[in-house]
C-alpha cells in the first residue's frame, strides 16, 4: 500500500508556476527612501570622518553603493539584474589605508545586503598555500569557507604566484580562488591588495584574475598636511596632544621622514607617535616626578620628537620591536 505523492503538492514545486508580476513603467520608486533605509549614509559619513584624504577612493565607494542601491530598486520592480561582480583590487603604498577601507567595505556591502554576514577575513599567502602536494586545496577551501557571507582580503596577493618556481603550489590556490570567485559570486567578495607595480606584474601573468576583478582602486600617497591631520586624529584617539612647538617639530619630522626610504605613510606616523609617547614617559620619570599635573601627562613636547634619530642622524628610527 504505497501512497502516491503528487509532485505538485510538494511546496518546492508550487511557487515556480506564477509568472513574475509585470509592473507598469511609471511605477514610482523612492531612491532617497531606499538609501535612508539601508543606513549606508552612516557608514559613508564615518568613512569621511575617520579617513583623511583618499578622495578618489571615497568617490569610488559612493559609486559602488549607488550601483547596488539601484540594482536593489530594479529587483523590486522585477527588472532582471545580474548580480554585479564586486571583487576588487586595492593597490597602493604601505600605510595608505587599504586594510581599513577593506573593513569598511565589508560593512557597506553588508548594509546594502550584498553580503550576508559582513565579516572580513584577512589572509596572506601562508594561509592559502600549503607545504606539500595535496595540502593547498583543502587549506584554500577552508579559508574560503570561513570567508563566505563576507569579504576575503588577501594582502600582498602577488606572492601567491611565484614564477621562479614552477612547482610552487601558489598556482593551485589561484585556480581554486578563481573558480570560487566565479561560481560563488553571491557568497563572497574577494579583495586583493598590494603594491601597484607588483600587482600589475601579478595580473599580467594571471589574466584570468584580472578579468574577474571589476574594480581596481589605487590608493594615493598622503600629502604632508594629510599626514599631520592623521597624526592629530591618532593623538586625539589616544588622549594626547601636541604643544604648539611640538606640532611644529612633528611637521618637520614628517617632512624629513617622507624623504627617507621605507616611508610607510600613516603607519610611519603611528610609529613616530608611539616612540614620542615612550620618550615622553621617560622624560616625565627623569624630571620632577612629585609635581606633575594632568596636563603634563597629556602633552607631547618638542624634545620628545626632536630626540628621534630622524633629526639626530638623518636615518629612520630603528624598529621599536627590535631595539630594547
Amino acid at each position, binding site marked *: 500500500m504505497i501512497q502516491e505523492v503528487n509532485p505538485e503538492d510538494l511546496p518546492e514545486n508550487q511557487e515556480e508556476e506564477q509568472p513574475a508580476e509585470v509592473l507598469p513603467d511609471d511605477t514610482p520608486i523612492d531612491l532617497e527612501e531606499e538609501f535612508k533605509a539601508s543606513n549606508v549614509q552612516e557608514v559613508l559619513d564615518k568613512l569621511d570622518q575617520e579617513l583623511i584624504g583618499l578622495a578618489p577612493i571615497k568617490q569610488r565607494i559612493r559609486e559602488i553603493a549607488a550601483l547596488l542601491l539601484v540594482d536593489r530598486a530594479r529587483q523590486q520592480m522585477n527588472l532582471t539584474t545580474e548580480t554585479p561582480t564586486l571583487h576588487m583590487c586595492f593597490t597602493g603604498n604601505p600605510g595608505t589605508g587599504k586594510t581599513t577601507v577593506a573593513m569598511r567595505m565589508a560593512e557597506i556591502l553588508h548594509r546594502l545586503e550584498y553580503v*550576508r554576514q559582513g565579516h572580513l577575513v584577512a589572509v596572506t599567502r601562508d594561509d592559502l598555500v600549503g607545504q606539500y602536494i595535496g595540502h593547498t586545496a583543502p587549506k584554500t577551501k577552508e579559508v574560503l*569557507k*570561513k570567508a563566505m*557571507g563576507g569579504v576575503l582580503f588577501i594582502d600582498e596577493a602577488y606572492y601567491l604566484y611565484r614564477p621562479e618556481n614552477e612547482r610552487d603550489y601558489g598556482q593551485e590556490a589561484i585556480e581554486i580562488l578563481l573558480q570560487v570567485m566565479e561560481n560563488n559570486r553571491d557568497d563572497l567578495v574577494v579583495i586583493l591588495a598590494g603594491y601597484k607595480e607588483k600587482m600589475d606584474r601579478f595580473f599580467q601573468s594571471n589574466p584570468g584574475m584580472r578579468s574577474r576583478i571589476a574594480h581596481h582602486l589605487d590608493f594615493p600617497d598622503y600629502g604632508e598636511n594629510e599626514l599631520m591631520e592623521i597624526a592629530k586624529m591618532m593623538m586625539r584617539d589616544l588622549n594626547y596632544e601636541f604643544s604648539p612647538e611640538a606640532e611644529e617639530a612633528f611637521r618637520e619630522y614628517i617632512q624629513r621622514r617622507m624623504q627617507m626610504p621605507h616611508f610607510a605613510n600613516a603607519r610611519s606616523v603611528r610609529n613616530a607617535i608611539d616612540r614620542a609617547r615612550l620618550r615622553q614617559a621617560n622624560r616625565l620619570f627623569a624630571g620632577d616626578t612629585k609635581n606633575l599635573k594632568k596636563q603634563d601627562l597629556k602633552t607631547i613636547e618638542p624634545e620628545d620628537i626632536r630626540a628621534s634619530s630622524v633629526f639626530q642622524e638623518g636615518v629612520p628610527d630603528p624598529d621599536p620591536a627590535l631595539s630594547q
Partner: protein
Amino acid sequence: MAMTNPGSRITQGTFSFLHDLTDDEIKAQVEYCLSQGWAVNVEFTDDPHPRNTYWEMWGLPMFDVKDPAAILYEVNECRKAFPHHYIRVTGFDSTRGWETPRLSFIVNRPTEEEPGFRLIRTEDEGRTIRYTIQPYVTEEKPENERYR
C-alpha cells in the same frame, strides 16, 4: 507505516517525515544552527540501520564558519563524491552540559525508492518470538556497493 511514510523511506533525525529539503531550506536550518553557535558537520553512510549511530564524517566539523553557503558547498561536494549514500547535517552544541548534537537531518538519499527493512522473527524458548530488522541493502552487498 505506509500511511505516514510512503515508500519505506528511512526516518532518522529531524524532518525525515517531510519531503526532501531544498537547498534553501537546508540553508535556513544551517543558519539557525550557526546562530546558536553550534558546529555543523556533514556525515554520510550507506547502512540505513537505525542502530548505525556513527556515520562517516565528511571532513572536520566546521567550527568557525559564519555563513550557511559554506556548509552547503561541503554538502554538495559530499553529494558529488557519494551520490549513492545517505548524507546528513548535524549541529553539535559544545556548551557544557549539552556537549551533544542538537539537530541532525538527512540532506541526501541514495535512491528514489528505498527498499526498507526485513523483519526477522526468531523463535525462542516457549512461544517467545524475538524480533530484529535488517536493511535489504546490507544483506549481501558490502559497504560502498549498495544502492546501485
